[in-house]
C-alpha cells in the first residue's frame, strides 16, 4: 500500500484551429506536477485561478487524459490501466465537486443518487444497496427522511453533504475534493470541514484537497503543494509552509490572505499584474514577471526543484 504517486504530470489543451479557424494554440494547464499522497494523509493543492490545480486533480483521476507523466495508485498505473482495472480503481478513488448545486442531478431522488454508484459497480443486491445508502446518509449527518427527497429541497451545506455521501458510498481509499467548501458560508463551511475531519479519522481516508483558501488548507492538510501556472513551486509540511514560506510566490500568497485581526494589517509588496495566461506562459520561471526578487537568471531558465529542508521542496533560483 503506497497510496497515490504522481510524477511529472503534464496536461496540455489545444484551443482554436478548428472549423471556425483561428490559430491553434496550446494551453499548458499543467506543466510539471509531482506529489504523493500516503494512505491516511491529506495533501493540499493550493493556488490561484488558472494555476492548474483543478485540471491536475481531474487528470490524476483520469477524468482528463494526461499529456505526459505517471500516476500510480498502490502501484497500479492509472493511465495504462485496462477498462476493468480502471473500474476497480474508480471505486477506490472518488471525487467531491465544488458546486453542490450543479453536481447533483435535480431529477433524481437522494436514494437514486446514492444507490447509483453501487449499481454501476455491481455491488450488492437492492436490499443491501438500500442499507448502505441509508448508513452513509446518517454518517454525513442527514435525516433518514432525506432519502426520498430531491436536491432542490436542501440547502447548500446539505447538498454538499449529499455530494460527500455519494463519494463515500463506495468506501474509497482516496478522495479528491475540488474546492469542496468554497461555495459555502463560513458557519456551514466549518460544519463540512468538521465532517470531513471526522470521516477521515474514522475511515482512514486519504485526501487530495484542492483549494484557493490557505486558511482551509492549513486546517485540513498535513502536506501542501503550492501551484503557479502549472508548476508546483513549493511543497512541504503545511505548518512550515504557512509560518515560514520560502518561494516568493508562497510569501505573496500568504501575505495577501486576509487575517481576521485588525492589529495585524499587512502590506505585502505592491506587485503589479495578475497571473499570466497559461496559453502564453513567460519564459524561465513562470513567476518572474511578478516576482519582487527576480534576478536575470529567472528570465532564462526554469529553476529545478530543490530540497531545502527535510520534506520541503522549492523551485526557485534563490535557493
Amino acid at each position, binding site marked *: 500500500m503506497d497510496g497515490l504517486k504522481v510524477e511529472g504530470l503534464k496536461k496540455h489543451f489545444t484551443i482554436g484551429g478548428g472549423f471556425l479557424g483561428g490559430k491553434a494554440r496550446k494551453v499548458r494547464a499543467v506543466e510539471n506536477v509531482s506529489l504523493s499522497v500516503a494512505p491516511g494523509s491529506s495533501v493540499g493543492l493550493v493556488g490561484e485561478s488558472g494555476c492548474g490545480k483543478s485540471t491536475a486533480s481531474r487528470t490524476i483521476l483520469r477524468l482528463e487524459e494526461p499529456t505526459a507523466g505517471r500516476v500510480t495508485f498502490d502501484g497500479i498505473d492509472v493511465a495504462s490501466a485496462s477498462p476493468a482495472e480502471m473500474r476497480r480503481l474508480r471505486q477506490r478513488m472518488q471525487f467531491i465537486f465544488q458546486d453542490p448545486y450543479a453536481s447533483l442531478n435535480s431529477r433524481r431522488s437522494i436514494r437514486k443518487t446514492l444507490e447509483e454508484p453501487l449499481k454501476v459497480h455491481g455491488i450488492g443486491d437492492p436490499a443491501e444497496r438500500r442499507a448502505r445508502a441509508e448508513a452513509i446518509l446518517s454518517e454525513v449527518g442527514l435525516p433518514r427522511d432525506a432519502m426520498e427527497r430531491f436536491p432542490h429541497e436542501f440547502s447548500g451545506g446539505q447538498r454538499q453533504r449529499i455530494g460527500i455521501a455519494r463519494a463515500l458510498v463506495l468506501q474509497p481509499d482516496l478522495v479528491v475534493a475540488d474546492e469542496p467548501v468554497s461555495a459555502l458560508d*463560513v458557519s456551514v463551511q466549518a*460544519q463540512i470541514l468538521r465532517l470531513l475531519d471526522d470521516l477521515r479519522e474514522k475511515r482512514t481516508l486519504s485526501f487530495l484537497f484542492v483549494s484557493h483558501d*490557505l486558511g482551509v488548507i492549513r486546517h485540513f492538510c498535513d502536506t501542501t503543494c503550492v501551484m503557479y501556472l502549472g508548476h508546483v513551486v513549493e511543497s512541504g509540511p503545511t505548518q512550515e509552509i504557512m509560518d515560514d514560506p520560502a518561494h516568493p510566490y508562497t510569501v505573496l500568497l500568504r501575505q495577501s490572505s*486576509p487575517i481576521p485581526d485588525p492589529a495585524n494589517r499587512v502590506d505585502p509588496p505592491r506587485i503589479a499584474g495578475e497571473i499570466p495566461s497559461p496559453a502564453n506562459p513567460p519564459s524561465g520561471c513562470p513567476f518572474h514577471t511578478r516576482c519582487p526578487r527576480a534576478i536575470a537568471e529567472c528570465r532564462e531558465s526554469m529553476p529545478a526543484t530543490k530540497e531545502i529542508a527535510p520534506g520541503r521542496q522549492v523551485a526557485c533560483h534563490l535557493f
Partner: protein
Amino acid sequence: MTALLDIRGLTTEFRVNGHWHAAIQDVNLSLAANETLAVVGESGSGKSVTALSALRLLPQAGARIARGEILFEGRDLAKLSQRQMAKVRGDEIAMIFQEPMTSLNPTMTVGDQIAEVLMIHRGMSHGAALKEARDLLDEVRVPDPGRRITEYPHQFSGGMRQRAMIAIALACRPKVLLADEPTTALDVTVQHQVLTLLDDLKRERGMGVIFITHNLGVVAQIADRVAVMYAGEIVETADCTRLFANPAHPYTEALLRAMPRVDRRADTLEPIPGSVPSITARPAGCHFAPRCGYVRPECGHHPALGPISGAGGSDHQARCILRAKAEEAAWTV
C-alpha cells in the same frame, strides 16, 4: 463627526406567496466622510438588500421600503422619485458590484462606459469625457490607460475589470461609495491589490465607503467600523479593532471561531449548528437563539440593539439580552 449618510430604522419587505416579509428590519447605519464601514454577514443576512435599498435599486414589484429614512446630506432618499434618484445615483453616491463581467456592457469599450457617466451627469462632450476616462483608469492603476480605454471588457482580466468598475463609480467624484462584495470573485493576490486601491482612493478623496462582505479577514484588513448582520438585523456594531478583540454578540463570536485561519494552528473548528433561517421562517424572539450556545428562556423576547456591559466610552452595541449593559438598561427604556 457629522454623518454623510444616515440610515434610520430602515425596513425593507419582500412579497413571498402573497405576504410581505421583512428582509431587513430596523437597520440603523451612519457613515462619516473618510470612513470605511464594513457590513458583514452570511448569505441571507440582508447585507446586500440594505445597500440596494439605500440606492433605491430594489425591483419595482414584490419589494418595498416599508419604513425608515435614508438621509443623505439632509435629503431623505427614500422619498425621492425615481427620476430624482437617478440624478443622485452614479453622481453623489456610486456603487460597485461583485461580478464585474456581468455589470459591464460587453458591447461597449471600457473608455465609452466610463465616459458615459460623465456625459450624463456632467454634460461633458464625448472627447472631453474620454480624456477624463483615460485619467481615471490611470488613477485606478490600470497600466497603459491610453490603449486600455479603446478595449472591450473581455480583453480585461478579472482584476482589471474590477478596476474599470471602480473608475466608472468614481468618475463623478461621489461622496459615498457602496461596494457590494467587490473582491469576492478575485484571487487573493489581486484582492489585496483592489483593497489597497480602495483604501488609497478613500483617503485621497475623503469618501465614505460602505463595504459589504462575508469575509471577516477582509473586514479586519480594511474597515474602520463594522456592523455585523444576521437574519435581516444588525446584531453588533463597534469599531473594527474592538469588534475583533472583544466580540460581544454570540453570533460574532461563533463566526470568528468557525473561520479557519491561515496564521494560527487550530486543530478543531467550532461550527455553528444549523443554518440561517429563511425570511419566511425567522424565530419570534432573538433570531440567533436556535443556533446559540448561550440560549436562555429570556431569548424568546426579541432583544434591542443596545450598549453592552464593559464597553467603556466606545460605541459598542449588541443585540443580545445576555450582553446588555444591565445597570443602564434599567433606565434607558
